[in-house]
């Protein structure tokens, strides 16, 4: 009997017992659904972090000088925490040092913020917003674009004008009808005139940026700052990745010299880049993808046992048919093939359904949450491979039992 014949036979057998076949597949369906859904979400996150997140936090070819890491994936030890806490705060003096260290064509900006705040316009208010005091060029280094009105100008900075560019979420909330331009919003006791609205960024962390207010650093430092004269970070944007690496070395050297650190001492500041973040993400990613096989295996082993059971029942119910087939000339290998094909096709169908449900589930998650989804092709190949493997493995024992049946005994079975 050819493989094709075996597969045809398997399909017709499965089709004629649709409901039983479906229920025997629940384990495999769950396992593969889980596999695909998790891979789809992890891969989506992965892409997001690589293509969007890292760029949106740091900008492209950009590094920041900070007192202590602000974005860190993975745990910081107490020792590290204490060490960073001893680092001096950044000031405008450090801006001068950084500026002096980098070549022309490199943009240096600085900023500070006070965590989460609320903003009001008349009776309306929006909570959980960030007010950022940014120097000239800050928004362009961050890759933010203005959708309506204008961005901050050098004049705003120099004169310490109380003007603001607001995120689209704030514009929507405070100014549901009409333009926010020219209106005065209040943060705490201070009034700022809206001069522009940023374009919506969306995405996983876009919400934070979409609900932010940018004001000139000079005005921020005068009014809102809890730590006047102190900066959160100094951002350096180089024209190329190579220039960024050179600038980092220069800045580190200049800062150390300025702070008179002896060669044996560690930096008392921290240079933060997206590559550090990406390698941290890779670690997390690796952990997720290492834990996944264990969970999926459990579901597939259970699924395989169920299929094996169903196949054993099927063999005992079809003993007479097996006897007949052998009497008519089926060899052991023919019967073996028939039952292996049946369990494999069965399990493959389960894997197919699992892929469908998994992708569907990931799409639902994507639609309902900010988590992005992306199904890589290799996960589909993996699912199909696992489906066939589970089917073959769980089919071996029942199929061998069927193949070894004595035709005389089998034909006598009622």
């Amino acid at each position, binding site marked *: 009997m050819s493989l094709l014949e075996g597969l045809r036979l398997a399909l017709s057998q499965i089709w004629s017992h649709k409901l039983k076949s479906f229920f025997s597949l629940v384990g495999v369906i769950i396992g593969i659904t889980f596999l695909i859904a998790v891979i789809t979400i992890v891969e989506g996150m992965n892409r997001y972090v690589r293509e969007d997140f890292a760029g949106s936090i740091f900008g492209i070819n950009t590094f920041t000088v900070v007192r202590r890491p602000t974005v860190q994936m993975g745990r910081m030890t107490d020792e590290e925490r204490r060490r960073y806490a001893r680092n001096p705060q950044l000031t405008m003096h450090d801006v001068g040092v950084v500026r002096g260290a980098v070549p022309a064509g490199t943009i240096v900006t600085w900023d500070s913020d006070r965590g989460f705040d609320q903003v009001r316009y008349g009776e309306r208010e929006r909570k959980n917003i960030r007010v950022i005091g940014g120097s000239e060029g800050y928004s362009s280094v961050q890759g933010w674009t203005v959708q309506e009105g204008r961005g901050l100008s050098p004049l705003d900075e120099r004169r310490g004008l109380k003007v603001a560019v607001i995120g689209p979420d704030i514009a929507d909330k405070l100014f549901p009808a009409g333009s926010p331009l020219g209106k005065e919003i209040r943060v705490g006791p201070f009034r700022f005139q809206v001069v522009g609205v940023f374009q919506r960024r969306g995405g996983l962390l876009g919400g934070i940026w979409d609900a932010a207010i940018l004001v000139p650093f000079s005005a921020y430092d005068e009014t809102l700052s809890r730590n006047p004269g102190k900066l959160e970070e100094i951002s350096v944007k180089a024209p190329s990745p190579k220039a960024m690496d050179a600038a980092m070395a220069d800045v580190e050297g200049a800062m150390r010299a300025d702070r008179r650190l002896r060669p044996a001492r560690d930096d008392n500041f921290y240079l933060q880049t997206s590559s550090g973040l990406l390698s941290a993400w890779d670690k997390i990613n690796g952990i997720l993808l290492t834990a996944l096989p264990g969970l999926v295996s459990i579901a597939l082993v259970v699924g395989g046992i169920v299929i094996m059971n169903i196949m054993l029942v099927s063999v005992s119910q079809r003993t007479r048919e097996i006897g007949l087939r*052998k009497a008519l*000339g*089926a060899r052991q290998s023919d019967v073996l093939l028939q039952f292996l094909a049946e369990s494999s096709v069965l399990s493959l169908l389960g894997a197919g359904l699992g892929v469908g449900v998994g992708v569907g589930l990931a799409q639902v998650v994507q639609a309902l949450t900010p988590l992005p989804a992306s199904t890589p092709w290799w996960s589909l190949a993996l699912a199909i491979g696992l489906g066939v493997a589970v089917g073959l493995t769980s089919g071996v024992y029942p199929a061998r039992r069927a193949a070894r049946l004595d035709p005389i005994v089998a034909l006598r079975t009622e």
Partner: protein
Amino acid sequence: MEASKDLIIITRDLTKDYQMGSETVHALRGVDVDIGRNEYIAVMGPSGSGKSTFMNLIGCLDTPTSGEYVLNGQAVQDLDDDELARIRNREIGFVFQTFNLLPRATSLHNVELPLIYAGVSASERRERAEEALRMVDLADRMEHRPNELSGGQRQRVAIARALVNRPSILLADEPTGNLDSATSAEIMAVFTHLHDTGQTIIMVTHEYDIAARAERVIMLRDGQIESHDADISAVPHAAAP
């Protein structure tokens, strides 16, 4: 004994022992049988006479404990499982008392079954299955399933299946055991017709009027041949065990 090239079945000192717990059952105790091409044989004997064992050996469903069995010029007593399967496929057409049709398959598919294991292509399978069904007058029942057929029609499907691979012998085990007398007569007419067209037929039965249709009756008793050509004309029908 005639020229042996015309013999399709030769057995010499065929024995079969079964182990039943600690006891050995001697089901066949040295059976010598010669069956010629195109013979129509009935095998009879009381229960426990060894006729089922004999049929299983003749049908290559089982191998003898000792002795020789030559089927169509080929010694088959020492063949392994796969070789026996090939012999069953090519040389033997089985007809069972309970028909043994696949319940979910059409007549056509049931008849195609032996050809699947013979490695015949799908198109040729269909052609030959249709031909076999026409031969048993079931041209109009090809797409029917067994539960849509009468008992006689089912057995005719089974006969078509037995013949589709052009076997050297048709081996029927109580072929009318599950049929009423009118239908039995219909099936026996099919057998007679097949015999007339050259088919070798070996039929196990315990019904004397059925056995009477055969050319020769082999009578078994206690695992041995009691008669190679039993005269059953004197036996009243009522005496059938």
